[in-house]
């Protein structure tokens, strides 16, 4: 019974960096907490009412001391802030060559699709030693995709994409939790992350009946809804071309420019009037009610695959 863990598994490249800060903070806490406790106990014993210790030269104001115990914590705080923020930025900037896996949260399960088309529910298979970027959205309420062993967590929002990345270091099975309260079976919205050797992962991909790659499914959806009638290879009368679009700056009808990222493409499919490309009318119907979240992800992946020329955001 007493054989329970005190330290969580550490299975990603970032986990060690987070833990370093964690243990430094623990040390700082013990140090300052210790000063306070020792100070309290010392005074409590030495200067208890019954004690005859001298109280001569007691002070009730000392600027130097007060400055010391404000400026020293301030300096340490600034140090931790800088250190921790650097790690945080690393957490947010995925390497360019990261493989992208789509995650859809819904009450109460995680639906995952690999670029090769493999789908899984509440389980995420990933290769060891390769950066993986999760592109996540929710179908209903806010969820949060949390892998304690990797020390990463990111809320998953309805109506937009959020991303996070990791590089697993140790093969094994790890917990996957939903960390943002999402209703009755919140605590049942759990699963596992299976980290495999790259060869094993390839085997798993081949063996788990992947079906069509996401870009191929996306192309099928594109044709099924007749998108190509307006979005031709060359910009036509009715709609702008999507070739080489992803990652570029788009000039809008209202004079602003936006970055053509995942969210922009997603929004333009669901609500075409939100950001209209300069030189075009809003002729496109809203697809809000007609596409499933999976189809939408596939479409986005397809449009991204068209944008092979100038990739800015990976």
């Amino acid at each position, binding site marked *: 019974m007493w054989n329970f863990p005190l330290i969580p598994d550490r299975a990603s490249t970032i986990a060690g960096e987070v833990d370093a800060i964690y243990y430094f903070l623990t040390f700082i806490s013990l140090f300052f907490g210790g000063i306070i406790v020792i100070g309290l106990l010392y005074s409590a014993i030495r200067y208890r009412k019954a004690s005859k210790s001298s109280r001569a030269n007691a002070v009730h104001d000392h600027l130097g001391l007060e400055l010391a115990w404000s400026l020293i914590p301030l300096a340490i705080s600034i140090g931790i802030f800088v250190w921790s923020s650097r790690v945080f930025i690393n957490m947010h900037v995925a390497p360019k060559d990261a493989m992208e896996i789509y995650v859809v949260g819904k009450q109460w399960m995680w639906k995952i699709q690999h670029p090769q088309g493999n789908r899984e529910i509440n389980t995420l298979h990933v290769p060891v030693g390769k950066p993986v970027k999760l592109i996540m959205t929710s179908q209903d309420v806010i969820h949060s995709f949390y892998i304690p062993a990797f020390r990463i967590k990111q809320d998953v929002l309805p109506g937009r994409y959020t991303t996070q990345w990791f590089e697993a270091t140790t093969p094994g099975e790890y917990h996957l939790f939903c960390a943002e309260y999402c209703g009755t079976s919140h605590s049942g919205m759990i699963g596992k992350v299976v980290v495999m050797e790259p060869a094993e992962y390839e085997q798993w991909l081949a063996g788990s009946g992947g079906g069509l790659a996401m870009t191929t499914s996306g192309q099928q959806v594109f044709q099924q809804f007749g998108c190509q009638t307006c979005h031709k290879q060359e910009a036509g009368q009715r709609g702008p071309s999507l070739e080489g679009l992803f990652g570029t700056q788009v000039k809008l009808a*209202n004079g602003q420019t936006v970055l053509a990222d995942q969210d922009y493409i997603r929004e333009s499919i669901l*609500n*075409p*009037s*939100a950001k209209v490309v300069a030189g075009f009318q*809003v002729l496109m119907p809203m697809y809000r009610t007609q596409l499933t979240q999976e189809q939408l992800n596939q479409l986005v992946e397809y449009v991204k695959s068209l944008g092979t020329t100038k990739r800015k955001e990976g």
Partner: protein
Amino acid sequence: MDKPQSTVAHHFEDMDQQREAGTLGMWAFLVTEIMFFGGVFAAYAIYHHMYPEAFGEASKTLSVVLGATNTAVLICSSLTMAFAVRSAQLNQRKRLVGFLILTIILGSAFLGIKAVEYSHKIHEHHVPGASFVFEGPHSGGAELFFSFYFAMTGLHALHMVIGIGLMVWLIVKAQRGRFSSEYHAPVEMAGLYWHFVDIVWVFLFPLLYLISRA
């Protein structure tokens, strides 16, 4: 406001202390009101930034004539309120009651015009919810605009109703001769409140009615 009848309450030293405490309390209350409306103004600003075209389109369906009329009515009511406070200070009971009644009439006129506008909106299916209809490509953003329109003008109207209630209470007290040039703090407090409600409208009118016509 919570004020004892025309004398210095037992826990105050003198009239000055009592008046100063009351005024400070009233201003503290107005600060909370500013934060209250500030929250919804901030949310409005964010969504206007997100959906500028939709907010513009939706704003054009509001009647500037009715809105401007209401602005004028409300500014006049502030003037009559100011006269009421002045009358209280000068110990002119009849004028005080007269100006308060005038203010109530103007406030009610504002609410009447507002009701006409609301009925137009209901008729046009511009009330957010299941029955909402808005022609054109900006239906989603327009629904948000009308959410804010009803939330903000509704809260403002509620404040007007409370203000009118306060004035009815003041008239009753004035008729009983409770106010004098020494003691008229409740009239001043109600005046501050009324001017505040007025100023909120002065911000609401351009934000809701004129935003697309700049």
